[in-house]
């Protein structure tokens, strides 16, 4: 057994165990921490696949950004020691059946399918290639999705600020007027 296989088994076991714990634990803060473990092990898988840049993005953006955001919103909205009530047995059974049926169907399809790799040599994924592809307008370029994502992120940022703001524009104006 090579070291790659050992690492894969380790990461896969961590991902499966902690994602199951994420969806079944009854304490919400623990669910967030288990989600963090899942995301970190996923980034380990990316390292295993030799996509170092994406693994770094996964660590900083997912494990660093989104989990912290989720933990903050948990602290704002729930009591720390609060335990969820168990979902009804009927709900658990039917959800598990639906998930298991989907998983079995997908796994059977995967095992049936013959994957054929191309014979072309692997490209070396380095930062230069990634940057050039992101901003290139050629056939292999991704400048359009890159720009669209930039606009989407800006829109999402403004939307998040506007939605989460405590009072509307009128309220802020009246606050300023009151101070004066």
């Amino acid at each position, binding site marked *: 057994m090579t070291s790659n296989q050992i690492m894969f088994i380790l990461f896969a076991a961590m991902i499966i165990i902690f994602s199951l714990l994420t969806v079944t634990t009854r304490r919400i803060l623990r669910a967030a921490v288990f989600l963090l473990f899942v995301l970190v092990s996923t980034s380990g898988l990316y390292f295993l696949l030799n996509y170092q840049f994406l693994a770094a993005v996964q660590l900083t953006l997912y494990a660093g*950004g989104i989990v912290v955001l989720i933990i903050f919103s948990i602290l704002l909205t729930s009591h720390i020691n609060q335990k969820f009530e168990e979902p009804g047995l009927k709900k658990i059974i*039917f959800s598990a059946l639906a998930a298991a049926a989907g998983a079995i169907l997908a*796994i059977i399809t995967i095992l049936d399918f013959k994957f054929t790799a*191309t014979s072309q040599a692997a490209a070396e*994924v380095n930062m230069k290639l990634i940057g050039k592809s992101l901003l290139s307008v050629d056939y292999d370029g991704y400048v359009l999705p890159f720009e669209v994502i930039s606009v989407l992120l800006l829109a*999402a940022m403004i939307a998040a600020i506007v939605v989460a703001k405590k009072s509307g524009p009128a309220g802020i104006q009246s606050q300023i007027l009151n101070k004066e």
Partner: protein
Amino acid sequence: MSTGIPVQYFLILATLMFFTGVYGFLTRRNLITILMSVELILNSVNINFLAFNRYLYPHKLEGMFFSLFVIAVAAAEAAVAIAIIINIYRRFTTINVEDVHEMKF
């Protein structure tokens, strides 16, 4: 290169993770835990993209850029969703999906 691991293993792992997320999405009632299940689902799809890219088309970078964009969309989605959740909490003082059933402005 990750030799010695068939591509099917990655796909099966991503499948299990995806349907764990689906199970959480169906059973959870708290809005934030539902959001976490959605993050699990998005993450499993990223594993699929990267495994396909590495094993089947290693001379291209399409899967990598797709997962990059998926991560960006997930970040935007999480930010907006959490803003909405906080706003809901202010109005109803709960984020249980069964207690929040009117979307009156």
